[in-house]
């Protein structure tokens, strides 16, 4: 049976989601062609009259757009942005991102639950970005979230799985795809999260700021696939103490 990621009834072969904050055409091309990304995030901003190009021109058909609510400071603003984004006619997916903290850009879990509840009732496929906490994740699930997106480390920090233990609890206890978002800085960290049982990885800065963007996009793809395969396979056991010979003892020398 083919292993697929299912979010809001939609199937994806890829488990790599591109955040497009630091975007240019090369990044999107690399993420789709070398990274295999099938979901790309977007943000809504005021239009001006001088624009000659749109990010939508660079995203190939067939890629699912995931508008986020960045800029929102409370549930009300996030709901407003989500409704406006849906009116752009690019589908029902929305990533809720609500922040009051400008230094660490940590999401406001309480407001995120409120926004999730309203938007899920309106038929949105809601993917909330959250600070990993089991009770909050349960509330998000009850509110109708289609997946949960815990942060690994502060946005753009490339610091890796700083919240590893809490993310593992969510993976073990929450019956929704757990998508690790923010802070993943290297393919090895993406692989580790996938080995733990994460459903997908979202990254932007790690790829956008790499020496060779297409090569790093491919590195992430391979790492995510390796981690997923290892998770599905089941890890080898860890000894509590001592050693266990992996070679047969020949009896030759002693």
């Amino acid at each position: 049976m083919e292993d697929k990621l299912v979010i809001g009834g939609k199937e994806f072969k890829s488990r790599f989601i591109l955040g497009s904050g630091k975007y240019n055409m090369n990044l999107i091309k690399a993420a789709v062609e070398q990274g295999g990304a099938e979901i790309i995030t977007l943000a809504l901003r005021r239009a001006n009259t001088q624009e000659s190009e749109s990010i939508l021109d660079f995203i190939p058909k067939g890629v699912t757009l995931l508008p986020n609510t960045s800029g929102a400071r409370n549930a009300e603003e996030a709901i407003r942005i989500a409704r406006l984004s849906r009116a752009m006619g690019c589908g029902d997916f929305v990533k809720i991102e609500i922040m009051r903290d400008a230094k660490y850009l940590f999401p406001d879990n309480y407001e995120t639950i409120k926004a999730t509840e309203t938007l899920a009732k309106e038929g949105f496929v809601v993917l909330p970005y959250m600070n990993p906490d089991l009770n909050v994740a349960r509330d998000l699930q009850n509110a109708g979230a289609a997946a949960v997106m815990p942060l690994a480390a502060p946005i753009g920090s490339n610091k890796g799985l700083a919240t590893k233990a809490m993310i593992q609890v969510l993976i073990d206890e929450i019956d929704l795809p757990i998508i690790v978002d923010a802070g993943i800085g290297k393919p090895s960290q993406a692989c580790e999260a996938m080995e733990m049982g994460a459903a997908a990885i979202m990254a932007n800065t790690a790829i956008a700021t790499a020496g060779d963007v297409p090569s790093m996009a491919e590195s992430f793809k391979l790492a995510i696939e390796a981690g997923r395969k290892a998770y599905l396979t089941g890890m080898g056991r860890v000894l509590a103490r001592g050693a266990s010979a992996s070679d047969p003892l020949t009896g030759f020398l002693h």
Partner: protein
Amino acid sequence: MVQINGESKDAANKNLYQYLVDEGFDISRVVVELNLEIIPAEDLKNITIKDNDSIEVLRFVGGG
């Protein structure tokens, strides 16, 4: 005066669709909110801008 994306404009009594086109907005790539209400693209031509209206014209950009 009318507020358009936070700026005061002399746009009262003009047709909303025509005003946005004349200002140079790419209508196919924006969503328009009039006094906090989303205006479906097909309705833009039926709306006359009124004094004190507040209009937001938004588009997608890169964002995480």
